[in-house]
């Protein structure tokens, strides 16, 4: 019996072939849109937070304010120096301290010049390990830099497929950094962070010589002994630096950033984006739903007469429902 009702129902679906397909297509696209919008939102969040993957949960980043933005002249601020490093090392709960230089240099290969970010690998094995851990990538080709390397450069993954040079960037070749020759020792694996993919790394000594600087740092990274104590360690470092620089609370010329702070603002923005995306998905779901309801309603309305006839020849309400199910 049930089989016969199915035959009847499918007969009707076939009878209205085009409409049936369009409805199915509509439902399908609607669901696909919702699913993809939501997963795109999630993907966006993962991708953006991935950019901050280098920030491990047990590391504090100390930097002087105003190094990035501001009118010309004002960007030439006081850099962090060895004195700061000493103060931070003395702070309670600090395990290791690593200084970082991040600069933009002119990179030349096959007579094509480009500007690129440069970072340094500390000249101690301990410091180098800390940086490599925070980069979270290994060498795809060649090898990583050793602390005692000289005249060697390690490149981010983007250089491997960079077409701008007109010649493939390979391990063993020589590139010019600010006019000086460096040998490529390795190319990094692809990282989720765009900055890491585009960076050129040399040892701290090489980079200081190249830029002709000494006792000057852009970032100090402090690893704490206990990551649960990170907030109080940050407070302690702030106190000590404030005291050393003779600054009042709220007027600091430096900032101590915890990983949570760094992620916090971004996550908030992403959550808003996500809500908007889900909102759009909900609207399209609603529109789709109304569309389906409308199709069902019309197909019942236009078959009112048929239903009447079926009832006249003995169909119970149950039978009619079976056919329309």
């Amino acid at each position, binding site marked *: 019996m049930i089989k016969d009702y199915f035959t009847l129902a499918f007969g*009707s679906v076939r009878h209205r072939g085009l409409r049936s397909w369009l409805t199915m297509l509509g439902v399908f696209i609607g669901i696909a849109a919702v699913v993809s919008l939501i997963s795109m939102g999630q993907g966006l969040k993962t991708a953006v937070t991935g950019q901050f993957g280098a920030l491990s949960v047990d590391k504090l980043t100390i930097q002087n304010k105003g190094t990035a933005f501001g009118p010309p002249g004002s960007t030439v601020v006081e850099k962090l120096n060895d004195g700061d490093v000493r103060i931070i090392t003395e702070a309670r709960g600090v395990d290791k301290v690593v200084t970082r230089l991040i600069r933009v240099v002119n990179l030349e290969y096959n007579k094509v010049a480009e500007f690129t970010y440069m970072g340094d690998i500390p000249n101690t094995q301990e410091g180098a390990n800390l940086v490599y851990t925070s980069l979270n990538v290994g060498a795809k080709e060649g090898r990583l830099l050793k602390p005692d390397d000289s005249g060697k450069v390690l490149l981010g993954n983007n250089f491997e497929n960079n077409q701008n040079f007109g010649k493939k960037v390979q391990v063993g070749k020589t590139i010019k950094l600010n006019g000086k020759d460096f040998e490529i020792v390795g190319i990094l694996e692809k990282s989720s962070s765009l900055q890491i993919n585009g960076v050129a790394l040399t040892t701290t000594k090489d980079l200081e010589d190249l830029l002709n600087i000494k006792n000057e740092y852009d970032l100090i990274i402090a690893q704490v002994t206990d990551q649960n104590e990170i907030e109080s360690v940050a407070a302690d470092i702030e106190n000590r630096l404030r005291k050393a620089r003779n600054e009042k609370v709220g007027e600091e010329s430096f900032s101590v950033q915890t990983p949570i702070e760094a992620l916090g603002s971004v996550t908030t923005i992403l959550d808003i984006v996500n809500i908007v995306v889900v909102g759009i998905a909900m609207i399209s779901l609603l529109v789709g739903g109304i569309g389906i309801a409308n199709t069902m309603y019309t197909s019942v309305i236009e078959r009112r007469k*048929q239903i009447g006839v*079926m009832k006249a*020849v*003995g169909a119970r*309400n149950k*039978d009619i429902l079976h056919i329309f199910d």
Partner: protein
Amino acid sequence: MGPSGSGKSTAMNLTGSLDLATKGDIFLSNENIEDMTESELAQLRGKKIGLIFQQFNLIPNLTAKENIMLPMLFQGISKDERERKAKELLKLVELTDREEHYPNQLSGGQQQRVAIARSLANDPEIILADEPTGNLDSKTGKKVMEFLKKLNEKDRTIIIVTHDPNLAREYAKTIYSLRDGVIESVERKTKNSWKKIREEKNKKGG
């Protein structure tokens, strides 16, 4: 028989249990239809009454054979039995070669014959036909009426509603004339003439 607005179709719908009376009781097989649920009524109607409409009312997306099988489906008859009965009925209405045709591929007369076959599917006690020839030209109408007459001769009760006195006098055995919702007269056919067996005058009733 009666002019338009005389209550023919209402009488028909009440007899066929398609409508429920606002006043009074209607008994079908000794059961008061007022006391039955819609679905129970539909079941009983499907079994006891065969309906033929002016508009044929075949299901457009079912073939002639499937249309005839439909009333039997709702009575829970097996598929083989339905097929067999449908073929038998198609033969009766002389449409064996049209069994796989859809209603829109059939002429009006053919559609009405399919409808007649459908009304017979469950061997009903009564066949109700509301203006069965109303949508047909006189020639095909005549053919349809011949079929109904043949059925009547096989001892099947047929109630036909019409506004056409000629049709009524030609085929009917008893004529109930309605006017303004009241039975005006009842005539029965004798050998050569029509004999009035009852006449109501200015009496209200239903």
